[in-house]
């Protein structure tokens, strides 16, 4: 590892810490701007109970003081207790959910990238031929369809009508459909990215030179072309993997996967402040890490990239 690279890494890590600090600050104050609090429901709780809870969670302190307390605890990795789910530590809830989400997310992301690049390359290779058209139509459809439609369709076809697969993520084989539902969109997107960037690369002089020198077509495609065409895919893959690993509200609800996705949504709806902060910080951290990894990957794929 050269010195320049080490210097670059340190700079990026420091930048990441600043980013997460900004995310904490902005989320904390914006979150308190929304009307409501964690202790409300259709049936209002008695006023003295409410007061007792406000005191317990320090809501009677001025906001800046609550912010500093939170920041102080967050530095020591203490993210507090959930305000809605009694007796549960935010970190426990997040890690338990993340374990489920990451399991299917990892497979889905790998599936999306591999299949996406393969089909993208094939489409580029057979540019404007029938197979290219088919791949493009299908991938356009999957890019355009929101996950709740894809998920519900899969559920309806394979679970309710054909009864081939269980609708419940807890049963054996139950994770197949959520993985497919999660993978379809990023796969379709990767196909389109790979195809257009491949088309670009395939038109370059050095490809023609390689072909003219009699290099085997598959070697031209995978060694010379795909390696250079992969840069935009890497850019996309970083945040995509981060989002897919942290779970999808829709897919997890539809297929009963006890993942993290639901907590992003329900914590906001419940004004579960500690949970909102926890999930946001967690997502931000994963995104920052994935971005860092993809930036470093550029360097390996394309030595011309100057990291400094």
């Amino acid at each position, binding site marked *: 590892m050269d010195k320049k690279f080490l210097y670059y890494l340190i700079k990026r890590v420091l930048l990441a810490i600043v980013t997460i600090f900004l995310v904490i600050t902005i989320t904390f104050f914006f979150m308190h701007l929304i009307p409501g609090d964690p202790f409300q429901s259709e*049936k209002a709780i008695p006023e*003295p109970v409410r007061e007792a809870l406000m005191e317990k969670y320090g809501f009677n302190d001025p906001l800046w003081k609550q912010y500093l307390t939170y920041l102080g605890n967050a530095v020591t990795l203490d993210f507090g207790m959930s305000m*809605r789910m009694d007796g*549960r530590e935010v970190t426990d809830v997040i890690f338990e959910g993340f374990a*489920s989400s990451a399991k299917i997310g990892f497979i889905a992301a790998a599936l999306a990238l591999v299949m996406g690049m393969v089909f993208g390359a094939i489409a580029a290779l057979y540019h404007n031929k029938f197979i290219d058209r088919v791949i493009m139509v299908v991938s356009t459809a999957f890019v355009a369809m929101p996950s709740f439609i894809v998920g*519900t369709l899969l559920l309806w076809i394979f*679970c309710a009508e054909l009864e081939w697969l269980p609708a419940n993520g807890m049963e054996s084989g139950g994770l197949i459909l959520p993985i497919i539902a999660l993978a379809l969109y990023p796969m379709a997107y990767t196909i389109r990215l790979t195809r257009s960037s491949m088309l670009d690369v395939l038109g370059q002089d050095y490809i023609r030179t390689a072909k003219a020198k009699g290099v085997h077509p598959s070697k031209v495609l995978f060694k010379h072309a795909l390696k250079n065409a992969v840069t935009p895919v890497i850019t996309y893959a970083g945040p995509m993997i981060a989002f897919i690993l942290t779970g999808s509200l829709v897919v997890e609800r*539809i297929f009963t996967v006890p993942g993290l996705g639901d907590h992003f949504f329900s914590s906001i*709806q419940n004004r579960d402040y500690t949970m909102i902060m926890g999930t946001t910080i967690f997502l931000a951290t994963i995104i920052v890490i994935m971005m860092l990894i993809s930036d470093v990957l550029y360097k390996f794929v394309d030595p011309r990239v100057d990291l400094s």
Partner: protein
Amino acid sequence: MKKSLALILAVVMVLSLGLAACGGEGGGDATYKDTMTVSAGGYPDTIDPALNSAVDGATYIIHAFAGLTGYNADCEIVADCAKELPEAVALDNGMVSYTYELKDGLKWSDGSDLTAEDFVYAWNRAASPATAADYCYMFELIDGYAEMWKTDDEGNFVNPDAKLNVKSVNDGKALEVVVTVEVPYFHELCAFPAYMPVKADVVDADPEGWATKAASYIGNGPYKVTDFTQAQLVMEKNEYYHNADAVKTKNIIWPFNEDDNALYANFQSGSYDFIDSVPNDQIDSIASRYADEYKVTGQLGTYYVSFNVNDEALKDFTEAERIDIRKALGLMLDRNYIVDAIGQAGQVPANTFVAMGLTDADGKTEFMDNANGGNGYFSVKEEDYATNCQTALTLLEGVAKSSGKFTVADGTVTGFPVLTYLTNEGTGHEALAAYMQDTLKGYGIEIKIEVQEWGTFLDTRKAGNYSIARNGWLGDYNDPISFLDMWISNSGNNDCQFGKGAHADYKGYSYDGKGDLTWAESYDAIIAKVKGSKDAEERFALMHQAEDLLMTTGAICPIYYYTDQFMISQDIEGAFASPLGFKYFMYATIKA
């Protein structure tokens, strides 16, 4: 189908299925499975009996714990941990005491002995300010509760160590509790999750987390928890339960799932044997495709529309005029159409605020059937809708004449102020809003719809920053006070803002032969008297008076009585539902 016929059918369906759901039978010669998979809802906020205030949480708790009393398959209160239901004994100070003799040999699911001390501990814990439970007020009848919650001028608790007047007697074999007033529903309260005993040493060892882990979740009910994750709750028959012989199915798995479509797909594929909600937009097809599995039962609740009595948009009118305006707008809604076309789940059109299913003083007739001298507060018969609309127009004509602010001619209102209807997101709620807008527009009255996200909506409505709002209430127990005490001036659920702001000075109410009273002098006074009343007849008469007074304001506009819908596999026998929506599977069997 004629709507009146539809209404009758709806009522019959609700009642007949309600009975079917309550009166399940077991037995038969078939072979049985040892596991049933039933879904009661999503991942629960809590399953701590003291802290829980949700219906799904209550269902889990009643399987893992047993109170002094419980429900049988006919939805009647019977003794559970107690040997029998004790009679109230009058005390010299005007209070009454109940002494519940405990059954012999009661044990916790870890095999240790359970005594009356455990109830004393649990009740004090659930009621105390230190626990700050949503349902602490379920203990307000017990002597000592008021002391416990007494605060000084700065809002600090004066007696943080005060205890309820409940004690273990006869060497832990009986529980004696002193209740400030004899009420008919005290035995019923004892079957409520908050009244379940908890084991002091496990709770004290980890007060925040004991109810989040299977290992420390020790109960005394028909089942014990063996696994609790974000995915599911797994229960196994508790051999130490005093009535373990009656528990036939060895395991119950409760998967956490709150997506209606996913629930339905799981039910169709046979993964789940029971689901507690169904996709609203598919009710028609579900009801025909699964006629035997789809059930609708009554529930103690009312869906209604609340008017803000301090509404800025109507500030140019006198309160008497506003009352007529509110009543008129309420009468213009066709409740039969709403339940048929929007609700679609067998809901029953409502003309009272206290819901269907609450009994009156005689313990037999329905409180709502006797409301307003037995007539309800307006007619919800299909054939009377036209008359209702006519009455509404007459009321508006009167206001138009006295105020001069708008005119009514040929059934059309001109120049009426634009009012805003506040609702939260949700297809049913928004469809009702659109129906209301459309219907009132037919009379020339314009309503704007404001849809807010749930948390914001609750905040706005509670603060009284609205004109008209969607509202709903589910009772906590079978007594009308559970619907009526929420409207006293300082109640946290007083969304209509009675007795607050300008309305605090309005003297237009009468009670006890006196007129020109404020809300505090009339309504608050009636409720206080109900709570202090020792005579059942008088109590119920007062509660009818309270509802009469409430309905004279026109600010409560009942739409329909809630129903509870679920789907249950035909293989399950012996399961039942209570009017509070709790589901009981402990005595159920499932055919292989």
